[in-house]
């Protein structure tokens, strides 16, 4: 009986749409359906706690990062630097940054985008009760002058090296939000007013957000070329990839590495890989597990791990091995650092000479302490669970016992924040700015920073702070390169590999480049086009 019903329904469905798999491209080329892994909490770029992919289609920043991580102007006419006079260092130790805005840009409601909006944004963040998520650097701004409608002069109390990205999230429309409480501005937070290529048509909670091309876009009437974008919320990875393969969605950003295999042979999908701006590493908490304080132990561990093999097998060759926190794509990247190649013999020798002798069970001890610790990592990521087990096996081969413990996403942050762990398989997604002081300065252990190796080296700390205090990019890069070399000799953590980003897009999508930074793959969505097949 039930069988009859099912068969009948299948037959019905089969009649409904010619039965076979839906074509991956709709008849029209004016709709792109994206399978997105979560529903945004808000469309307000400053307030959201997650990546701003959807938001950035509507609200543009003064600048953005392109696919090579260069900072390019969007709503600004050009990026202010010391060379073009946009940045002036004051004698009192502060600096003034002059932003010249692009003329002819209008908000979607027709009102002109002016410097008053810039000033309003700074004031809203600094003076009001509103304290959103992403406000780095605003607290160092003392005031903003607006000599004319297209110029905003931002006065910083001190030299702030990442100033160029200060307004990467754009501005709040003064004429709409002045005098209102921004947290309670549900209309704005659900359907923000922006200057970007798209505007929000509908946000159906739990299901999707639909964007359509905004008329009067400043780049020209022919942009954006794709008239509508539909973001479907599909938190379950298997579901999302299945829908991609069946054609119900056409694009998925940030495909998990273990899913790439399934998509490689799909004729309708192109996999776009960008070297990422993040890296995975093994954090070694010296405070909680004192043997990590011994440089010989850390170096031995570095030699014991066969990173090439892990990348080739567990990660299907989708990522590249790296040796430090600043990634190859960054202008501050230093290639010539100490590298620790896979060499278990050397590892054993280092441990032996450091006094760690192998016990009967194969695990080394010294002075009564066993070289045995717990390595935590976030659960729910198949690849990381596998990597941690591969590491476990490789460490065991040299006499180090690493017990693996999985902790779920929301709990793990508070664990490492309180330093209550031995080692952790972890990753940092770096911001576009190459600063790493937060992670390695001796006085930046939580809660004042993210130095979760709880390690301290005064020389390194000095280099890092010096790099923060200069607005001269060349000088900054030199200092950061020094810092990277020192980091590699001290190896407080074990860098593993770069987290490349793989996006799956339809083969008839042109203009897509991907993006290694948090600007996300939609950074140039206005330029995309779906060609007819």
């Amino acid at each position, binding site marked *: 009986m039930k069988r009859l019903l099912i068969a009948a329904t299948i037959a019905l469905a089969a009649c409904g749409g010619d039965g076979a798999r839906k074509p991956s491209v709709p008849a029209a080329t004016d709709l792109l359906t994206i399978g997105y892994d979560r529903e945004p909490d808000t469309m307000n770029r400053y307030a959201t706690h997650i990546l701003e992919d959807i938001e950035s289609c509507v609200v543009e920043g003064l600048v953005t990062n392109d696919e090579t991580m260069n900072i390019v102007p969007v709503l600004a006419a050009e990026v202010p630097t010391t060379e073009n006079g946009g940045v002036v260092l004051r004698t009192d130790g502060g600096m003034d940054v002059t932003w010249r805005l692009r003329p002819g840009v209008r908000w979607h409601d027709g009102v002109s985008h002016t410097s008053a909006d810039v000033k309003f944004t700074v004031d809203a963040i600094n003076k009001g009760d509103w304290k959103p998520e992403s406000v780095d650097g605003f607290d160092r701004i003392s005031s903003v002058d607006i000599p004319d409608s297209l110029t905003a002069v931002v006065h910083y109390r001190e030299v702030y090296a990442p100033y160029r990205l200060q307004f990467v999230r754009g501005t709040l429309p003064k004429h709409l939000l002045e005098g209102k409480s921004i947290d309670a501005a549900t209309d704005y937070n659900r359907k923000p007013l922006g200057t970007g290529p798209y505007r929000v048509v509908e946000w159906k909670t739990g299901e999707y957000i639909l964007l359509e091309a905004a008329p009067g876009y400043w780049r020209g009437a022919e942009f954006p070329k794709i008239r509508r974008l539909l973001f479907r919320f599909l938190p379950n990875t*298997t579901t999302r990839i299945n829908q991609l393969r069946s054609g119900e969605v056409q694009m998925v950003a940030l495909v998990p590495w*273990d899913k790439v295999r*399934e998509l490689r042979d799909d004729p309708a999908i192109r996999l776009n890989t960008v070297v990422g701006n993040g890296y995975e590493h093994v954090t070694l908490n010296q405070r909680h597990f004192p043997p990590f304080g011994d440089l010989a132990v850390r170096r031995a561990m570095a030699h014991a791990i066969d990173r090439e093999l892990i990348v080739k097998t567990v990660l299907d060759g989708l990522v590249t091995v790296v040796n430090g926190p600043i990634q190859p794509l960054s202008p501050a990247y230093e290639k010539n650092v100490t590298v620790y190649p896979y060499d278990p013999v050397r590892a054993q020798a280092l441990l032996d000479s450091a006094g760690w002798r192998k016990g009967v069970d194969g695990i080394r001890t010294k002075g009564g302490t066993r070289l045995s610790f717990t390595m935590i990592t976030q659960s729910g990521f198949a690849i990381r669970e596998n990597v941690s*087990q*591969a590491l476990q096996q490789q460490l065991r081969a040299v006499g180090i016992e690493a017990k693996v*413990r*999985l902790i*779920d996403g929301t709990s793990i942050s508070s664990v490492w924040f309180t330093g209550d762990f031995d080692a952790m398989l972890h990753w940092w997604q770096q911001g576009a700015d190459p600063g790493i002081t937060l992670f390695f300065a001796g006085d930046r252990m939580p809660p004042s920073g993210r130095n979760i190796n709880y390690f301290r080296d005064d020389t390194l700390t000095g280099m890092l702070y010096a790099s923060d205090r200069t607005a001269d990019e060349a000088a900054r890069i030199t200092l950061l390169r020094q810092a990277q070399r020192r980091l590699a000799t001290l190896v407080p953590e074990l860098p593993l590999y770069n987290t490349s980003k793989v996006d799956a897009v339809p083969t008839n999508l042109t203009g897509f480049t991907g993006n290694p930074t948090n600007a996300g793959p939609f950074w140039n969505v206005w330029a995309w086009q779906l060609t007819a097949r």
Partner: protein
Amino acid sequence: MPRTVASTRAPLVALGLLTLLLVGAALAPWLAPYAMDGLDLANRRAAPSVEHWFGTDELGRDLLTRVLFGARVSLAIGLISALVSAAIGAAVGAIAGSAGRLVDDLLMRITDAMLAVPRLPLLMITAAVLQPSVPTLVLLVGLVGWMETARVVRAEVLSLAARDFVAAARAMGATPTRVILRHILPGVLPATAVATTLAVGRGILLESALSFFGVGVQPPTASWGNMLYQAQSTMSSEPWLAIFPGAMIFLTVLACNAVGDAIGSAQS
């Protein structure tokens, strides 16, 4: 009604299967062809073959080995949690059935309340909070499974208590405790056995559901449930990674239910 040969065969087969599973699980360290955490990165995702009867997984570990070791965990969780449920349930049911109206009402309302709270969501939250080890997991699963047993036991006790032999025992001066222990509990045993057998299956299913959401048994420890969870992402290309553990869960629970049914119908 006359029992046909066919109707006695099925439960025997089920019982045989369960015994086989238990023995296999107990002897896993000796039966397993490979080491439990033996990674073989060069030989990952191999299809079933002569060297690897069930194929290998993402890290090149032999699936048959993991299924055998996983049996230990899943069966242990199922069995011991069922015993915990049985103990609690029998106690609650017996007391409710033989005590006065007030106590009976109270206990039954507690039972109803526990049955009202959505079981899987409650366990999921608890597991997320406690991030339990396997023994704690056993306890938790046991703590949400006693209500069915309590109801069944209470019903049995009530019907037994109304019978003549109990009245006779009381008339002869037996204390209520003695009545419970010597006369009622033995009569309650068959019903408890049925409920417990069914609870084993339920416990295994609960554990696999929890592991499916990543809050049950944590890798690298293998359980059938978390093997399914890990196999989720590769179901289309390496279906054997999901088919074998899932089939084991299915067969075990099926066998438990078949045996439970058989005991149940043997009573009547």
